Structures are given as C-alpha cells and as structure tokens.
C-alpha cells in the first residue's frame, strides 16, 4: 500500500484511480452552467409535452406554464450541481473510492492558480473569496433594482414602470438584498477568517463548504429569471393567498429559497462544527475572539430557523403544483399558518444579519483603539441573549394581521426585551471607545457609522414593537426606513468596515483608503438622506409598496431618490477602490494592523494549510496596551529574580 507524508507522518493511502482529482479535473463552473442549461431545457420540454393539453387558466395563460417552469428550475439546480461535480463525493463514498491526500490537495485547488475560483474547490480561503464576490454580485443586482424603485418613486409627475413590474422590482429587490445581507459577512468572514482565527487548517467539512457556495450560486438565477415570467409581485414575504395567486415567477422565488436554505444549513453546520471542534489548544471560551461568537450565533440561528422558511415555500409550492391545501381556507388551510412559518425564520433572520456585522465591529474596535474590548463577557451575554430571545419575537410582524390579537402584548414584551442584549453590544462598543484615542483608519470609521445607524434603527424599532403605535406605523414608509437602518445601516456598513479591515489578508494588498473613504462617507450621507426622508414620509402616512401617492409626499420622495442615487454612486466608488487595489495596490505585510488574533499571525498570502504547526494560544485576544507576560525582557527579569543564570 502506498503512503503519503502528511505533516511528517507517513499515512497509508487508498488506491489512486487515475490522476489526482479524477473526474473533478474536468468539471468547473462552465460545465455546471452547461449542465444546468441543458437539463433545464430537457426537463422543461418533457414537462411541456406532459401538459400539452392546450388548457388555459382563468386569465387565459397556459395551464402548463407553472409545472413547466418548475421543471426548468429543477433541471437547472440538478444539472448545475451535477456539472460542478457536487455529486461526485457522495458517489465515490458509496462506491468506496476514498480520496487520497493527492486528491484532497487537488480538490483544495493546489497549483491551479486563479482557475481554482471557478471550481468546486474545498480550500476555505477560496470559498471565502467566492462568497465575497457572490455577495457583491447579489448586492449589485439588488441595488440596481433599488435604483429602479427609487426612480419610479422619485419621478412623481409620471409613471415610469407599469404597476406589475414595479411590484416585481420591490419583491425581487427585497429577497435579493436579504440573501446578500445574510451572506455578506458570514460568507467571506465566516469562511476565510474564522478557521484561521480558530487556529485550524481548514473547515471541518471542506467539501460541504464548497457545496454551500455553489448552492448559493445556483440559487440566484431562478430569482433573476423569475422577473421574465411575471416576477415576485408580493413583497419579499409573499404572503398567502397572494403567493398562491401569483404567476409562475413565484416558482423562481420558491426555488431560490429552498436551495438557499439548504446552502445556509450546510454552511451553518460547517461553521459551528469548526468552531466547536477545531479551535487551537489553549483557546478556551474566555480566550475566543468575539467575532467567532458572533459568527457562531448567526450560524446557530440560521440552522434552527431557516427550515421553517424553507418549508413555508415547499408547502406553497405543493399548494400551487399538486393541489394540496395548506394555505387554502376553502379546503381547510390557513393563511396564518404561512405567516407563522415565514416569520419563525423571518425574525431570527434579522439577527442572522445583524450579529455578524456587529461582531466584526466589536472585533476591529480594540485593534484601532489599542485597548482591550470593554466588558468582553457582557458582549458574549449580549450575543447569547439575542440568540435566546430571537425565536420568541416573530409575531410582532403579525400584530395587524388579525392572528391571535391577545398574543400581541406578550410578543411586544419579548420584542422590547431583546433590545436589552442588543443594547449591551452597543454599550460595549461605546465603552471600548470611551476616553480612547483612536487610530483614524477606514475600518474605525465603520464603527462610528454602524453605531449611529444602529441607534436610529434600534430606537425606531421600539416604536414598532409597541402594539398601539404599530397600528399607525404598520405598512407605511416608517417601517421601511426602520428596517433599512437596521439591516443595511448595520450590515452593509459593518461589512464595508470588515472588507477594509480584512482586505490586506484576503488580497495581500492595502486597500486604497482614500478612494474607499470617499465612497464610504458618500454612501453614509446618501443613506441618511434616503432613509431619513423615508421616516418623514412614513410619519406623514405614506404607505409602502405603492406606485402613486399624494403630492404631499413628493419632497421626501425626491430627497430619498437623490439619496439612493448618491448611495449608488458611492458604492461604485467603493467598488472601484476594491478592484484597483486588488489589481495594483501596495503590497501589505502579514499583520499590517499589528492585531493579536491568530488570523493575523499567518503570512500573506495565507499558505494552503494555514499553519505549518498548529498554534497554541496563551493569552487573551484583546490584550492591547497590557504588558506582555511573555515579553523577553520580562522573562529575563523573572529568571534573574529567581536566581537562574
């Protein structure tokens, strides 16, 4: 039997069948694309033949449109994943053809240059960068739709789009941005940074890691294509019975959610297992960086909550395609069942977005203040408190739906309670800044922006959690402004801070902070203009999701649209800074910030296996300004004191 030397140990190897990597050598994004398109066409064709009855629905659409579109979606997902090589691993396992060390190294992208980013590559650093690019693409798509929405609302003297298309823009923008915000921090930071920060050589399940990103890639096209067949006209929540009554575009949305939920579950399992089982020796829970807590918390919430959302869409799909009646009251179904299943994920999902961004801010603030994190344990308590309460607040989205009015007050209480652990996190940030002198760099600017936005979003959220106040605010622009302050104001600006902070580690180059700062502050100003004006429109009573409104709302809508375009320009500037710095920025050393966590102790670019020898942690992660007990002069003094020569 052959052997391979792995970290100075001779390890017996299974039989090598052909070249390392086997069939995976021939599979990549382009074969995935071809597989997806071909299988989608075949499935769609076969389903169309099956339903070629010429029957029509009440509005004279073809009765086969729904099943055919569904078959196309299934074909796309199966074909794309097959073409990428996602099924090779399970089949090899079943056939007993285990990977050799050489196979594993090929799968990790060793020696494949930039082409490894187009493959089913298992290296967590490649997956992290793939998540970053994917998050930027989805943000760009969602942002473009936001521009179109604001164009319609800003042009108050004419109708730019027809109402159906406008509704599609709103719904598709909503879900695209939710997906983007969920992955924008947890994806790149959770995959690239967390394993190194833990002191691990890779994620616990490298192949599942690759599967999670390619599932995300495969989940997005159905949402985009759905715009061509009627789109998602019912907001991102697609309440029943609107969901059931919508055109076939809804099937695209449902496919996206079902596939994305699988991707999230797999990613959550991977991140949680990595953190629990692969932390370096000596990295006790009291020495674990706060970012790891934040990413773990987000993964935990996603793991238990996402299946409810996924099943709300599976049941909706069966109602639509095979005549079940989960949500059809005529046959014993209930639309409230949908709302409950949806919001059982829908509210924890807000914290799935918020907590990682807040954790990034908590992580970088001690670096730029050169101070230990104020009340590290309170920060942990805040994160634990949010996770604990996040599953008990979902019905505050349903105060006005007529479902269980007597439950409104308990949910009001639980919602107001959750502001306490969230408040802990803000207080820890402010406490760390207190009487400090900060290092004025772009990541630190993100701290100020996030705190500002979070205060406004948090305080306005308390109004909305209040049942009587919500009777007025519900369904108007005040709600829209509030959740943008929380989701975009915290997640996006936190992510921009995270990108600025980790850019040297990810790319080996410094970010052009001057250009990026222009983009950042312009985005901040545009953000305040857009959503500050939206608060005013909401207080005046402008309803959400309407195309036409009274002239009294014109001014605030003009301002919002100007603000939105400002954000758009600002994001392009920020993107330009990223691209130019990535291509030709000044080379950065391994630890340009002189940070203390393990992720900054590796060379840049980070080697394939991160650490040649696994590290041992002997101190706290945020001992900035605290004398190093292991400093050479101290050790020498101690030895002299003890009389040792």
């Amino acid at each position, binding site marked *: 039997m052959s052997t391979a030397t792995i970290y100075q140990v001779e*390890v017996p190897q299974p039989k090598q069948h052909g070249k390392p990597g086997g069939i995976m050598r021939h599979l990549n994004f382009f074969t995935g694309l071809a597989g997806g398109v071909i299988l989608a066409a075949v499935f769609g064709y076969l389903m169309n033949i099956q339903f070629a009855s010429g029957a029509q629905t009440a509005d004279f659409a073809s009765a086969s449109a729904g099943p055919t579109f569904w078959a196309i979606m299934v074909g796309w997902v199966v074909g794309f994943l097959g073409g990428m090589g996602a099924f090779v691993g399970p089949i090899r396992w079943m056939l007993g053809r285990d990977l050799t060390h050489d196979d594993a190294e090929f799968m990790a992208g060793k020696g494949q240059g930039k082409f490894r980013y187009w493959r089913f590559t298992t290296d967590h650093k490649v997956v992290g960068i793939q998540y970053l690019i994917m998050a930027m693409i989805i943000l760009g798509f969602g942002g473009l739709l936001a521009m179109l929405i604001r164009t319609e609302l800003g042009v108050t003297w004419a109708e730019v789009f027809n109402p159906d298309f406008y509704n599609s823009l709103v719904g598709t923008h909503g879900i695209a941005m939710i997906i983007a915000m969920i992955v924008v921090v947890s994806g790149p930071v959770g995959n690239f940074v967390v394993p190194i920060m833990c002191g691990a050589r890779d994620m616990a*399940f490298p192949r599942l890691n690759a599967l999670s990103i390619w599932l995300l890639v495969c989940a997005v096209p159905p949402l985009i294509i759905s715009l061509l067949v009627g789109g998602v006209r019912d907001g991102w929540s697609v309440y029943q019975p609107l969901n059931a009554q919508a055109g076939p575009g809804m099937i695209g949305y449902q496919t996206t959610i079902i596939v994305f939920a699988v991707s999230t579950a797999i990613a959550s399992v991977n991140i949680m297992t990595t953190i629990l089982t692969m932390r370096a020796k000596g990295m006790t829970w009291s020495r674990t960086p706060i970012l790891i807590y934040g990413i773990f918390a987000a993964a935990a919430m996603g*793991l238990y909550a996402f299946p409810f959302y996924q099943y*709300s869409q599976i049941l909706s799909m069966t109602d639509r395609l095979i005549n*079940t009646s989960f949500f059809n*009251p005529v046959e014993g179904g209930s639309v409230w069942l949908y709302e409950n299943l949806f919001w059982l994920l829908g509210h924890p999902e807000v914290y799935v977005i918020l907590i990682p961004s807040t954790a990034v801010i908590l992580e970088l603030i001690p670096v730029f203040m050169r101070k230990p994190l104020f009340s590290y344990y309170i920060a942990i308590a805040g994160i634990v408190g949010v996770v604990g309460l996040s599953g008990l607040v979902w019905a505050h989205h349903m105060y006005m739906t007529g479902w269980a009015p007597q439950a409104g007050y308990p949910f009001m209480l639980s919602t107001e309670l959750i502001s306490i652990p969230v408040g802990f996190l803000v207080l820890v940030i402010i406490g760390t800044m207190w009487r400090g002198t900060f290092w004025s760099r772009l990541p630190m600017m993100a701290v100020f922006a996030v705190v500002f936005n979070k205060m406004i979003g948090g305080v306005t959220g308390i109004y909305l959690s209040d049942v009587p106040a919500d009777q007025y605010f519900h369904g108007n622009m005040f709600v829209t402004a509030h959740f943008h302050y929380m989701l975009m104001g915290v997640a996006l600006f936190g992510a921009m801070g995270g990108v600025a902070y980790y850019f040297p580690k990810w790319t080996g180059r410094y970010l052009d902070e001057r250009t990026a700062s222009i983009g950042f502050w312009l985005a901040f100003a545009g953000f305040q203009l857009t959503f500050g004006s939206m608060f005013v429109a909401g207080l005046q009573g402008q309803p959400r999701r309407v195309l036409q409104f009274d002239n009294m709302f014109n001014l605030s809508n003009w301002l919002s649209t100007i603000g939105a375009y400002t954000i758009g320009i600002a994001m392009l500037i920020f993107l330009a800074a990223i691209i130019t710095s990535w291509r030709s920025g000044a080379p950065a050393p391994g630890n340009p910030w002189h940070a203390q966590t393990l992720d900054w102790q590796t060379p840049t670019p980070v080697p394939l296996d991160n650490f040649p020898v696994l590290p041992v942690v002997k101190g706290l992660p945020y001992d900035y300004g605290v004398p190093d007990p292991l400093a050479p002069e101290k050790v020498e003094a101690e030895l002299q004191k003890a009389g040792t020569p």
Partner: protein
Amino acid sequence: MSSPVLSPTTGEPVSTVFRRNRLGLIFLIVADFSGTMALIISYCYLWSLNVNNGWAPNTPSLDGNLDVKGRAPLPWAADWPFWAIFLLTVIATVVLWSGIRGLRKGHHAQMLTAAIGALLITIGTLALQWWQMATFPFGLENGAYASAVFLLTGSTFANLLISAFLLTGVVGRTRAGLISTDNPWQAKLVGYWMIWICGAILLGALCTTFLKESSNPTPENFGGFSLVNPDKPTPTPTPSPSASPSPSAS
C-alpha cells in the same frame, strides 16, 4: 497496542474525524428536526383550527363555496401502515447497530450481514411507504388532513431514500474492508442517522393516529372567498330537485 488508523486526507486519527463528523451530523439532524417540526406544526395547527370545517378528508369544493355539507366525506388513512413503517425502521436500526456491536468484537461478517439486512429492510420499508401513499383513500386535493398526511409521508419517503443510499454505502464499504474493527466510525454515523429517522417517523405516526377528528368540531366561519354579506339576512336556500331529503325530513 496497535497504532491508530489515520485519515488519508488530513493525517489525523480517524477517531478525531469521527467526533467531528458526529457533531456535524447532530447539527444536520437539528436542521432536519426543524423541518420536521415545520410539518408537525402545520399538521397540528390545521387540525386544531379545522378552518371552515375543512380538516377532515372531503371531496373538494369546485366553486369556492365554504359549505361542506354538499361534499362527500372520505375515510381517514388507516393507522397500521404508519406504525408498520415505524416498526420496520426500528428493526433496521437495531439490526445495523447489532452489526456495529459485532464489529467491535471483531466479527466482520456479522457487520456485513447486518448492513445487508438493514438495507433490505429499508428497501422494503420504502416500498411499503410508496404503497401507502399510492393507496390512501383520498387524494392530495381532499382537504387539509390529506395534504398534511401526504407531506408527512413524503418526508418519511425522502428520509428512507437517504437511509437506503447510506446503507448501500455501508454495505459496499464493509465488503471492501473500509469499515472495520479499527475503523467502524462511518457505520456508527449511519446508525445515528437511523435513530433520528425512527424519531421523525414516530412523530408522524403519533400525529396521524391520535390527531384525527379535529378538537374544534364547530369552527367559526373563517371567511376566505365567500361573497356572503354578513350584514344582510341570508336568503333561505331553495332545495334543488335533485337533492336527497335529509334524514329528519324523511
């Protein structure tokens, strides 16, 4: 003392990899449990509400009329197939674990026999599940109970299909000597999965056996798509000539 078996890809002892995989599997089961709970909650929710008296299996309303009196009641699903499927899955799990236990004592042949036995039982269970779904006395469109039962059994079918795949792998890997006394971990992981699906099938069987007749036999009209104006007195319906006389009239 024999040296530990090392993972060919990472060089770690396979026992370390096993502990990691076991935790990952537990988390995957948590996700699957949440999905199962979404179905169980849906079942119990619709059972407790009995919206528009539409819980029990009925012939469907063709015109959107909420009055169920004109619809023919259909029978409930028989209980025994749910429990037979549960029992067979438990037996498959016990058989697999007996093989793992034998493997610990060095009985490789016992493991192989047990894995084949568990696989055959699971395939039989899959066939029974298919037969049950094909012979329900109602269709998908016959009310909320029918929908919930179909989805629960469909979920069981999917779980059994995954189990059959995993057991096929265990059989092949045991034959190839990849599952051995020194390296029994993957069989154990499949064993844990089997224990979970026993639990998932049990939850479904309990619901379908003990939650049939709704606890809310006289529900209020939940509205829906009725066009009746509640402010106006409802006109007395004119009996149609084809309607059969009610028992009291006769």
